């Protein structure tokens, strides 16, 4: 099929960017979305032009590297699709010949653009560094079966831990809030007995860091949940807010 791609081009973080149009004449419906961009890049290279920079690695929806806003939707999935996907999992048979597809990077203050469609998501790493871990040294762990964990809790912890840290939640949110990402890590650790000791300090520190990074507040729009490729539930945000209140009542302040 024939397609027009309207792509965001930006040399680096210090320059202005603009949309640029490109035509593709022969896109296979069996190719993945990223393979379609590969095709375009091959064409640009052959024409002596610079290919479009975009992040990707695993191309199977698990590394969280790919990050494209397609026709205004993070990971481009507001179509007649069966399930949540990352853009690397989306295939061209979901598009029609003759269409114009607009490709943009994640847009958020917390995610500065590095080049074309690539952004800097270092802020997410710093939020985890503020407390998204359990302080246990290598070698000091008790036997793995020493403390049983109800299956239900383990399952909820896993639901939250499934987050791939791609940042689609931030890109989709009108406030560019990072609450879904941040609360997912807490949902993982707080549903396990190992995570209890640092629970309240963790929530205070991670939320403090989140604010410092320039992410906005959550106003319950639910856009994040709608685009999350791992279907992380909004409930985790509610649980995080509850913990934040408890921490305040306990008088726990940030240490980051």
């Amino acid at each position, binding site marked *: 099929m024939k397609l027009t791609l309207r792509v965001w081009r930006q040399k680096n973080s210090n320059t202005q960017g603009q949309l640029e149009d490109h035509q593709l004449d022969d896109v296979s419906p069996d190719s*993945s979305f990223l393979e379609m961009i590969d095709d375009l890049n091959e064409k640009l290279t052959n024409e*002596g032009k610079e290919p479009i*920079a975009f992040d990707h690695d695993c*191309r199977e929806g698990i590394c*969280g590297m790919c990050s494209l806003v397609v026709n205004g939707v993070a990971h481009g999935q507001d179509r007649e699709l069966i399930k949540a996907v990352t853009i690397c999992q989306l295939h061209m048979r979901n598009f029609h010949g003759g269409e114009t597809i607009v490709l943009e990077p994640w847009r958020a203050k917390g995610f500065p653009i590095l080049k074309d469609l690539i952004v800097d998501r270092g802020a997410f790493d710093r939020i985890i560094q503020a407390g998204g871990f359990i302080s246990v040294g290598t070698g000091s762990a*008790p036997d793995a*079966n020493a403390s049983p964990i109800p299956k239900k809790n383990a399952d909820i912890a*896993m639901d939250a831990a499934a987050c791939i840290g791609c940042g689609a939640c931030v890109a989709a949110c009108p406030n560019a809030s990072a609450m879904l990402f941040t609360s997912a890590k807490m949902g993982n650790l707080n549903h396990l007995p*190992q995570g209890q000791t640092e629970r309240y300090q963790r929530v205070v520190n991670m939320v403090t860091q989140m604010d410092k990074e320039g992410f906005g507040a959550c106003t319950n729009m639910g856009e994040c949940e709608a685009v999350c490729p791992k279907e992380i539930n909004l409930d985790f945000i509610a649980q995080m807010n509850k913990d934040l209140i408890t921490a305040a009542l306990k008088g726990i302040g940030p240490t980051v």
Partner: protein
Amino acid sequence: MKNIIDQIKVVEGSLNSAVPEGRIQDVWDNHRFNMKLVNPANKRKFNVIVVGSGLAGGAAAATMGELGYNVQCFFYQDSARRAHSVAAQGGINAAKNYQNDGDSIFRLFYDTVKGGDYRSREANVYRLAQVSNNIIDQCVAQGVPFAREYGGALDNRSFGGAQVSRTFYARGQTGQQLLLGAYQALSRQAAAGSVKLYPRTEMLDLIVINGQARGIVTRNMVTGEIKSYLADAVVLATGGYGNLYYLSTNAMGCNVTASWRAYKRGAFFANPCYVQIHPTCIPPAGEHQSKLTLMSESLRNDGRIWVPRNPNDTRKANDIPEAERYYYLEEKYPSFGNLVPRDVASRNAKTVVDEGHGVGELKNGVYLDFAESIGRLGAHIIKERYGNLFDMYTSITGEDPYKVPMRIYPAIHYTMGGTWVDYNLQTTIPGLFSIGEANFSDHGANRLGASALMQGLADGYFVIPYTMGNYLAQAKSEKVDTNHPAVREAEAGVNERMKKLLSINGKRSVSSFHRELGRVIWDNVGMARTDAGLRTALKRIPEIRAEFWENVRVPGSADDLNQSLEMAGRVVDFLEFGEVMALDALHRAESCGGHFREESQTEEGEALRDDENFAYTAAWEYAGEGKMPILNKEPLTFEYVKLTQRSYK
């Protein structure tokens, strides 16, 4: 060309495996006691570079940071959490024997040596089995949400044909969860200041001074800056080289560059021809295909594999009557049927496809059919077991496996070969260590399912932190700075390579060369290898390489974010490495594990080892540009696991 094998210079007795004396059960404990310790107050004076943030590198950097060393950790993704370990689905083995089904450290050790087709070093494998239990404890303590039973205990399953249930898992995302555990431990150290992280930074050369590894040359992938970092020791944890094949289940950025650069500085490369092919991947859909997706092996528990008996059959799968279907695995291997080991399943798929029985538009796959199990168990049970995988298959192919059989075909999945290391995981360059998939150590000629995650974490959490201390406590290394001639020389080399790549300005893209190389390797150094095919590869690879250096076009500049340039650098190394791999495969005239030489098979078509002539590790030594590498042999002896021929009939 004919006597190319005779031209190989062979050296014996040059490799010291450094395995301590003693009963295998006691070796590691004794060694830990005998190793030198670094005084706690001195630890922070030592700088250690870790390249890689996967299970191996992430665990190593976090643990060494915790111990007090000054650690710098480099990786090419934008976050340590995205290393390709994240993609592992199935699970991780440990000898816990929680299921009380007769597992033990010795059994895991035994299975791994046997599964590796007797081409690994016993003492290393025993240690791996020993520390496997600590890994599970560690990961649970970090908050890894492993699957649990209703009583709250950890759940296990049996994996890849093992007779005991020793595999721990976290849904279909075990690699992701283990990696997040390591990443969080790493993040804790980053916050504490003991580990400094360098995302989007690629290692492009190794710095060796007075025979010791002292640092790396890197390129900042955002600004293009070439910069050297110096240290007292360097650890490579850069993963496998499966992307040599172009199409593989690896991530797009996986590469051999770090290991290859180390090779050219003197680190021997062992058994490059040992690669693992996974039988259940989705076949390529056309020329545009950029990578292959693995479908969990567990599907073979309920799916039946077949092809049309008549190669010219053009009917849809469901229209082909039972009698005209060729259930080749069930027919050939009545006792194991569809559950034969990975390599046997893969090779048989290749045979039927080569004979023209392939299915799908490109006739490049075989059917994996669930109709019978859906009829027997109901679609809801199949959905419960494999719902996610079926969805993934549908989203990739547009076909519904509840209604039509899946199409599958083998793909490159894991590389057992890697940088040669001794018992301490040290390479032939003092101060350079290699861990995880990047080294060759524990899996011999074939890896068991769920054992790569185990090895990465064993090396990272429980081996390298000890052996590194032992090295640092004794290494007397001079003080150096970045003005040292060796640093200047390495940097100049890297800069020159970049400049050259950008200046050729030919007619073909980097990926077109990568694709061409991958095709040659897949056809000739893939699932089944022959003397003639390997010689073809050895002829073709230098030709492709020569054309590359004349006709590649790399757009953009060096001082900018330039993905074409990154890729070009990796393909350059694949173009050299592929030749050594083909040479290794040619010289090893036996079949073993993942290395199947058609000339060496039993009457039933099984891999036939030649222990008399090939019970050794082949460690290749760089001999200079354009020269044939030197073959160093490390003999393998089996004191604890008796040598036997595999049979799955």
